[in-house]
């Protein structure tokens, strides 16, 4: 114990030399320890705290995951609701655009057709049909305020529709070529035979006073003759589907299918006589 208790310089230097030699021998035997090497304590800490840190980290991650999933699901539900709403809006928009496209095509056809007629043209929309006489009378949204007059001719790109029989300031009533009271002087396109067209039922019209001697062909087209001072000349009317005659009669009846599909009628052109565009 004197080594600790007593101060002795001579002995101290002896021991200093002894310990120095020991250290030098150790260095010579084992070499230097590089500074990059991890200490025993560091390794011990890593090993002992590793599982604990791992456990804490896993628990923390699990809690975070549950919390994040909950938030994610809530957000997803909100997002889903918004997307459903948006899809519905977009579907409606697509439908609107599709309708507009169809309408645009129809209007383009109407425009192309009306360019050939030297009349003032007014675009009208069908607002209703006469329920008692199906497809025989219809109402359009143009009237005397739009210069529509009695007997103004109504057409569309397919052909003749009829004529105006009643006019109010904003609406007009149209008698179609399916109306038996509406009579149109027509011309068979090939044979150039005249006849008087009148409505028969909701699908067909008939042409009266056609001579039996005239060779009327099946599917032959009919156009307006321009006589009678109401209908302009050369407006397509329909085509022949059937004809009926009796031996003792001088004339026969020809049944005509109108070009216009009255079941799908939406827009029409009203031709105003006496006013050029």
């Amino acid at each position, binding site marked *: *114990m*004197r*080594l*600790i*208790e*007593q*101060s*002795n*310089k001579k*002995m*101290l230097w*002896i*021991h*200093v030399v*002894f*310990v*120095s030699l*020991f*250290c*030098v021998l*150790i*260095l010579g035997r*084992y070499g*230097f*320890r*590089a*500074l*990059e*090497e*991890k*200490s*025993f*304590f*560091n390794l011990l*800490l890593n090993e002992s705290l590793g599982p604990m840190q791992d456990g804490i980290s896993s628990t923390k991650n699990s809690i975070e995951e549950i919390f994040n999933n909950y938030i994610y699901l809530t957000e997803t539900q909100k997002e889903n609701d918004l997307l459903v709403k948006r899809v519905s809006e977009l579907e409606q928009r697509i439908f609107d655009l599709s309708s507009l496209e169809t309408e645009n095509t129809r209007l383009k056809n109407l425009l192309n057709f009306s360019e050939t007629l030297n009349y003032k043209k007014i675009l009208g929309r069908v607002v209703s049909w006469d329920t008692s006489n199906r497809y025989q009378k219809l109402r359009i949204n143009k009237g005397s305020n739009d210069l529509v007059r009695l007997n103004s001719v109504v057409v569309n790109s397919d052909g003749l529709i009829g004529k105006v029989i009643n006019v109010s300031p904003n609406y007009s009533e149209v008698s179609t070529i399916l109306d038996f009271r509406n009579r149109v002087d027509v011309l068979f396109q090939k044979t150039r035979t005249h006849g008087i067209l009148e409505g028969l039922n909701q699908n067909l019209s008939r042409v009266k006073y056609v001579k039996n001697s005239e060779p009327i062909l099946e599917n032959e087209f009919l156009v307006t003759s321009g006589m009678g001072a109401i209908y302009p000349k050369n407006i397509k009317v329909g085509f022949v589907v059937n004809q009926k005659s009796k031996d003792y009669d001088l004339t026969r009846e020809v049944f005509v299918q109108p070009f216009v599909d009255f079941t799908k009628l939406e827009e029409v052109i009203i031709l105003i006589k006496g006013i050029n565009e």
Partner: protein
Amino acid sequence: MNKGLKKVFITLLIYLGLELITGVLVVPTLGVALNFSIFFCLYFCLNYTFPAMPYMLLSIQYFHSFFSSTDWAVETLIALLFIFLIKFFKDVLRLDNIKNKVIFTFFSYLIWYFLRYTIHLIVQKDFNFILDHFYYSFISIFIISLVSIFLFKMLEKVWQDHV
């Protein structure tokens, strides 16, 4: 227990406590390694000349090597060199106030680190790596220099009546 051994035991206990605090709390949070082993060696070199001191320095450095990447043999050699240096300059050292103690600690650490890294530079030959280590050591030198005020008082209390 023998009085001297008791003092050694208490000193080593304090030292162990400091190493553990540094290793568990200071290093992970601040990223700075505080080397208290040097301070303990300095303290003994400065105050005592008992023959077992080289062994004590060796024990401290060996113990420290568990907590640090330093080489205990090199550190012990530097510590033994410090016995010689301090004994040589003892007459010019005036450590009767706090300021001088802090300055002494600071410069002693600086010299110690310089010696250590010079030896490593000779062996490892990686100047940039050594320079980087030396740069980061400055922070720990500053901290230990400030903490030395309390450490001096603590060790003086333990070793107050020693020869």
